[in-house]
Each structure stands twice: as structure tokens, then as C-alpha cells.
């Protein structure tokens, strides 16, 4: 598959003032030349092929937006090479803009007071879309979502869900090679989330559009992404299939118990007996995280049963959310 996006050793540094405290410090800052270099993105390389949906994840402040801004040409990398559909984004910003679509979860890029169809017509002119392609696209849209509900409505009168839907449709309208979706389902209800995901999936499949999705909602990731890239402190932590990630942590299972009698007493006993698993507890349950590559869940349960009377129990698979959380918290990544 031809790569749509290529990044080689991309680094982005910002110069920020070392701020001092207090009124005196603020006054000193006015004349200060005391800068420090903040490395927001640190040596990131990746190739993304046509038709991929990549989940781009990381905690707040990890460097995600900085990366996206470099891909869209708003920022120039400090060092490294970047190509989007053959263009160097920051050098040919207008040309690059023709090949990409961008959606921000909570900020509409459409004309606020115009009905959606009029926004579409203006976009048709801006992107110089051929009339046939434009009509085909509208036909495709009509087959995917209920267009009657939104097409004649001014954007300002739309619900957040309808607005997001419209923004996504607008971003795909000129059939770009790549679409960037930043938190597309933020603030939406469950059924709208599902509709948005179905739409993104269908458009990606139909048009082979590459999609880069940044999100904190693991539901989006599970529903859409086969590949995920995780960064933190500007550094790449993970870049592989989502299955691989689960497999890697899939050996973990959580055994949840509710004992008869005093819980903390029981927890102590379990901690003393079960040595090759980590034990923790909250208000309801005692959780025993078992690494199945070392020992079996049933064996652990057997050990516990001998010392504590169990009232209730559950067995949980580790979820994507927990896996990601473990990685953010600096959990073990030894591939």
C-alpha cells in the first residue's frame, strides 16, 4: 500500500520563558532572556497507508495536537521530514489543505448562520469539486445518514450531535486523501456516538480515506481503529495493532471478590497467601490482578478459598481502557 503520510524523526521544540514567581519575578520576566527549550514532540517516525484508521492516543499535553498541527501544515517541525500525499505540509499549506479534511470535536468550521446545503455549495467552490463528484458524494451521504433532518437547517440551530455529523460530512466532501478527527464524539450521547462511529467507518471503507483519530474515548478506538499509536511527553510509546496490544496485556485478568466478614482482614490474608499477583481493594470489591502467563486464575482462586469465605466473585478481562491507562502510567512495555 502506498503511504499517504510519512514522518521521519520529527521533532518540535518550543522556546518558553522561565517564569518567576511573585510581583518582583513578573517584573524581572519582562526583561528576561532566560528561555528553556520545551520538546513537545521528540523523534517520532511513522508511515500511514491509504485507507487506514489510526487511533492517535496520549494523555493531555502529550504532544498530540502539535503532531496534528505539523501534519496539517500549521506548524513547521524543528527537525525531521514529513510528507502528506507527497506534499511538505508547512511549505505548501494551501496545496496540502486541498488533500486533507479536519474536524474539531467542539468547533464547527461551517458557516454558522447558513443552512448545511449552502455551506456544502460554498465548499464545492472552494475545493473546486466537479459537479458529478459532488452529486455522487451527496448521494453517498444520503445512503448513510438521514440528510433530510439536517440539510436545510442552519448550523446554529443544530444539536451538538447534528453539528458534529455535519462537520464530518463537510470534511469528507472534497474526497480528501486524509481526514483528521479530533475528539469527534466528545460530549455526545451514546446513540449519537454510535451513529458517528458508523458514519466514519462507512466513509473510510467507501472512499478508502485515511483517518487519524485523536480521542480519549476508548469506545471510539475499539469501534474504529485497527492500529493505534500512543505518545506521551512527545515520545512514541507504542505503534502497532490493537490486537497486539490486547494480546500483550491480555494475559492479565482481574479476579474480583467479596468476602464474608471484614474485608480489610481478608485482604491482608490474601496478600500474605497469593504472592504472584497484585491485590487491591475499593468499597465493594477486592481485586486480584493475575498474570496468567505465570499462574492460573483457578489456582489463585483455590488458594484464596482455603483462607477466606467468598460471598461473591467476578472475573474480568482487561479492557482497552485499562491497557491504555497502564501505558500512560508507565506500565511495562517489553515487546
Amino acid at each position, binding site marked *: 500500500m502506498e503511504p499517504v503520510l510519512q514522518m521521519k524523526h520529527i521533532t518540535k521544540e518550543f522556546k518558553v520563558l522561565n517564569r518567576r514567581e511573585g510581583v518582583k519575578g513578573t517584573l524581572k520576566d519582562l526583561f528576561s532572556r532566560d528561555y528553556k527549550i520545551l520538546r*513537545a514532540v521528540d523523534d517520532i517516525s511513522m508511515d500511514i497507508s491509504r485507507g487506514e484508521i489510526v487511533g492517535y492516543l496520549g494523555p493531555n499535553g502529550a504532544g498530540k495536537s502539535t503532531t496534528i498541527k505539523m501534519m496539517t501544515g500549521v506548524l513547521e517541525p524543528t527537525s525531521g521530514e514529513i510528507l502528506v500525499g507527497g506534499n511538505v505540509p508547512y511549505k505548501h499549506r494551501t496545496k496540502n489543505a486541498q488533500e486533507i479534511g479536519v474536524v474539531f470535536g467542539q468547533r464547527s468550521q461551517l458557516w454558522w448562520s447558513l443552512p448545511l446545503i449552502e455551506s456544502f455549495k460554498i465548499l464545492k467552490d472552494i475545493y473546486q469539486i466537479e459537479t458529478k463528484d459532488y452529486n455522487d458524494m451527496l448521494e453517498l451521504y444520503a445512503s448513510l445518514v438521514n440528510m433530510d433532518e439536517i440539510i436545510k437547517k442552519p448550523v446554529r440551530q443544530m444539536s451538538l450531535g447534528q453539528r458534529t455529523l455535519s462537520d464530518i460530512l463537510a470534511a469528507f466532501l472534497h474526497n480528501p486523501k486524509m481526514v483528521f478527527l479530533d475528539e469527534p464524539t466528545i460530549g455526545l450521547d451514546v446513540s449519537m456516538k454510535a451513529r458517528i462511529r458508523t458514519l466514519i467507518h462507512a466513509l473510510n471503507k467507501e472512499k478508502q480515506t485515511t483517518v487519524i483519530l485523536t480521542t480519549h474515548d476508548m469506545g471510539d478506538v475499539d469501534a474504529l481503529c485497527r492500529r493505534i499509536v500512543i505518545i506521551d511527553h512527545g515520545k512514541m510509546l507504542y505503534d502497532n495493532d490493537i490486537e497486539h496490544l490486547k494480546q500483550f496485556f491480555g494475559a492479565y485478568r482481574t479476579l474480583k471478590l467479596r468476602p464474608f466478614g471484614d474485608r480489610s482482614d481478608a485482604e491482608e490474608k490474601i496478600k500474605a497467601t497469593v504472592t504472584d499477583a497484585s491485590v487491591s481493594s475499593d468499597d465493594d470489591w477486592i481485586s486480584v490482578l493475575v498474570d496468567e502467563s505465570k499462574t492460573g486464575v483457578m489456582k489463585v482462586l483455590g488458594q484464596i478459598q482455603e483462607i477466606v469465605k467468598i460471598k461473591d466473585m467476578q472475573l474480568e478481562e482487561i479492557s482497552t481502557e485499562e491497557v491504555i491507562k497502564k501505558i500512560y502510567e508507565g506500565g511495562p512495555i517489553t515487546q
Partner: protein
Amino acid sequence: MKKKNFRFYLRLYGKILAQDLKSKMSYRADFIISTIGMIATNIAGFVSFWILFRNFPTVNGWGYYEMLFLYGFSLVALTPVQCFFDNNWSLRMYVRDGSFIKYCFRPVNLFFYFQSEVFDIKGLGQLAFGIGTLVYSWTKLAIAVTPLAILKTILFLITASLVMVALQNAAAATCFWITNSFYVLDLVLRFKDYAKYPITIFTPVFRFVFTFVIPIAFIAYYPSLIILRPDDVGVLTWISPLVGGLLFYASYRFWMYGAMKYSGTGF
């Protein structure tokens, strides 16, 4: 991809404008109230002007109708900045909260795209007022109506508009570097009020400032000399179309320089 020339942008602007007007008309109360407000503002401006001249029949050798001419000239000259570049007033808000970034992803000129979003219809009333005042004072001054005189007036009105647009662009673009550019914009707006007086009434220091630092004298005074005092036209009047063009271009480059450097908020 076809080349995006002047005709492309003109057509695009026309389409956006037509849609925008259509949707504005649909908010009838808003439309009527802002029209009334606009008329009241203009009447108030005119009344204060009239009171001033009941007490001082001439200002430094400038008669009532000459002053009226200057006033009308500046009103017409200020119309384009009001109608087409009003989004400059919101620029600092977009820049501060990071939403300016949404303008950065379209394959069209960033300055054009940003300004095309807002058309302020209130400017049209000001235009009507200005033209009325201009025609009235013109007839009262008994200036001959020749094609050349009209051509000159139009050319110098365009010049004056360009100067005003340039001043506002430059003032608005300061928000790419400073957090609250409102004061800069406000300052320019206040100075704009002095544009309708002949520059000779000011002290030499302000004359210098209004000619070379904040060139508001190019908005009405220097250009209108060509009609009002054809025997008294200095070099500054003759070069004013050039000054207008240059200032506009410089302010556009300055605006774009700030906008291209812009990278939003957050990491």
C-alpha cells in the same frame, strides 16, 4: 486543480455574501433594530457637527460646506472598512481562544477567507448618508460637475478607503503578538474621528503624526483637496493613491505574517 485567480475570489465572495444576506434578512427584528441604530448614529454625528458650525462659521479658513464635504467624504471612504473588513474586530477573540485555527485548513487565501465570513450591512446606510452629504455640499459649493472631477473623486475615495482598511488591518493583526489588541484597535478607531477635519487646524506635531505615523490625513484631507482646493494641491495629495496602495499591501503582508505564524493553543 484550477488556478485561483481574481475572478475565482470575486465569484466566491459573491456567493458567500448572497447566502449571508439571505440568512440575515430572516432575522427580521435584528435587521430592523440595527438599521435604526445605524441611522441614529449617523444623525447624532451630523447634529454634533451642525452645532459646532453654528458657533464657528469657519475653521481655519474652511467654510461650513467645505467641512461638510470632508465629512461626507470620510463617511463614504469608511464604508468599505465597515462592510468588508468588520471581522477584524473579532480576530483577537478567535486568536485568544484558539478557534482561529479553523481558518487555516482551507485551500484559499487565509486573509480573504477570514474577511469573507462577515459582511456588515450597516455600512450601506453610512454609504447612503455619506453620498447624500457629499452631493449636497458639492452643489452648495457650486463645484463644476465634469467627468474628470467625478473620476478624481472616485479614485481618491478608493485611496482613502485603502488607507483606512490598512490602518485597521495593522491594528487588528497586533493580536497575533499581544493578548489584548482591543486597545490598539480602539485607538485607531478614535483617531479615525479626526480624519474629517482639515489637518491645518492641528499643531505641527499632530500634523506630522497624522501624516506620517498614523496617516489618517490621507483618509479625507489630502484626497479631497483635489476637489476643494485645486490650486492648492501639494505633492502629498498627488502621491496619496500610491500611499493608499502601499499601506494596504503592507498591512496585508503584516496580517498574513502574523496569521501564518499562528499555531493555536495547547500542545
